[in-house]
């Protein structure tokens, strides 16, 4: 039995009720449905706002982070007044203001192999708005094991991808991406940046797909992947097929339960801390400031040239990470060297590249130039 709509709800959803594909019955279906949104960030913001506005009866939000002012360029569910607050709480307040008729359940915890099945099992649909590979594989596998549709979206700079992975009817995420790229090959949005409106465009498409699946209307993007580029304003679609060798949804699947996704991907999923190359390779900003007083150290900035306009260290040589392999001859392995970037992730990879090329006297500036700006030179901006 579908729940009835109150007089207030009929007025609130009247523009839906006027569409024959939704109508009163469709709106009651939405009221009866539930959606779990993994991540309350760039994608999670528009997804949650539009699903709440549309009258999904119960929305679950998983996130363990707090709102930072650098989020607000794109995470429109949060606001200046909620900087420092828990994201899930910030989002819940906004959603219930938008639509007090719905229920919002929040999970202020990392989404992990330990809690994911318990959290997701009572939802009709899962929306993947995470920012890292381990959680994406976890989200996929949970959806496959529970037999639920996983509305996938991912973004980077100007590019977006959307699909509906639903192993009962089509491919899953692993059918397309059986394994993640090696750590460091694909930069995150924190390193590479993202156009603020991009998650808006992509997240609203994701919300659209969720509504279609829940209403049972139209052609959900099962077996289709959208590739969007904001600069070209291009929408390309490709066909996805179920991979017969898929390890979670194929006929001979050998992964039957959740695994250690951080180990599988070789990267932490819940570590947004400063990039570290390991204690023996790291030098802190404070230590570096002391060292340069007495020693000559070559400073190598592996950021992109446009980032130097934001902040720079005097006398640093700029070799962007992407060019480092081709420009090794510019560096002298006999010289003591400190590598740095924005927050330490790229310089960690640069360090790996240099050490594998035989460099021994290299260190990584832990936390990057942002750490320098916090600890040593407070006149530098943090970004």
């Amino acid at each position, binding site marked *: 039995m579908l729940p009835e709509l109150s007089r207030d709800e009929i007025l609130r959803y009247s523009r839906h009720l006027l569409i024959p594909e939704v109508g009163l019955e469709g709106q009651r279906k939405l009221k009866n449905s539930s959606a779990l949104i993994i991540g309350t*960030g760039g994608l999670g913001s528009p997804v949650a706002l539009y699903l709440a506005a549309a009258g999904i009866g119960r929305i679950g939000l998983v996130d363990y982070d707090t709102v930072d002012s650098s989020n607000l360029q794109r995470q429109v569910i949060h606001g200046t007044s909620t900087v420092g607050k828990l994201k899930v709480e910030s989002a819940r307040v906004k959603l219930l203001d938008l639509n007090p008729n719905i229920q919002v359940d929040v999970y202020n915890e990392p989404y992990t192999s330990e809690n994911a099945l318990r959290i997701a099992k009572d939802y009709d649909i899962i929306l993947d*708005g995470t920012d890292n590979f381990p959680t994406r594989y976890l989200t996929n596998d949970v959806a496959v094991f529970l037999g639920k549709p996983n509305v996938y979206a991912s973004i*980077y700079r100007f*590019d977006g991808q959307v699909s509906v992975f639903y192993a009962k009817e089509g491919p899953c995420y692993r059918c397309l991406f059986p394994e993640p790229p090696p750590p460091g090959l694909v930069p995150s949005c924190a390193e590479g940046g993202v156009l603020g409106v991009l998650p808006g465009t992509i997240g609203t498409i994701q919300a659209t797909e969720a509504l279609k699946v829940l209403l049972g209307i139209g052609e959900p993007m099962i077996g289709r992947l959208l590739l969007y*580029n904001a600069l070209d304003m291009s929408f390309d679609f490709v066909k996805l097929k179920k991979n017969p060798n898929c390890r979670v949804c194929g006929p001979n699947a050998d992964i039957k339960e959740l695994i250690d996704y951080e180990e599988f991907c070789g990267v932490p999923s819940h570590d947004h801390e400063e990039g570290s190359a390991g204690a023996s390779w790291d030098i802190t900003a404070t230590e570096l400031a002391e060292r340069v007083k007495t020693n000559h150290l070559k400073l190598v900035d592996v950021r992109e040239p446009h980032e130097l306009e934001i902040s720079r260290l005097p006398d640093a040589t700029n070799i962007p990470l992407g060019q480092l392999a081709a420009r090794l001859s510019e560096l002298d392995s006999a010289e003591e060297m400190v590598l740095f970037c924005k927050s330490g992730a790229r310089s960690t990879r640069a360090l790996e590249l240099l050490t594998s090329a035989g460099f021994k006297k290299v260190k990584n500036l832990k936390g990057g130039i942002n750490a320098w700006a916090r600890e040593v030179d407070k006149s530098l901006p943090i970004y």
Partner: protein
Amino acid sequence: MPALRVPTPLRAYTNGQSEVTVNGSNISDALGDLTTQYPALKPHLFNEGGELRPFVNLFVGENNIKDLQGVNTPIKDGEKIMLIPSIAGGGNVA
């Protein structure tokens, strides 16, 4: 000649080019030509053994080469080859 669409994360290795015209009558030749033009791309597409990395998805038109003839999939003039990357971003990182 076929055109190969380069996704944003890999444009750092193609001098920012979003589309590269490649020579070749099949995917293998086209990728050979691509990595000759842009050698820095090679480790991102191929493993040490010279095989296409498992997370690299190539589509000719709408179809994954894995569903066609793999790297032997023929390509025609003017056909669009798309390189589809694994991206993980959700814009959630502080």
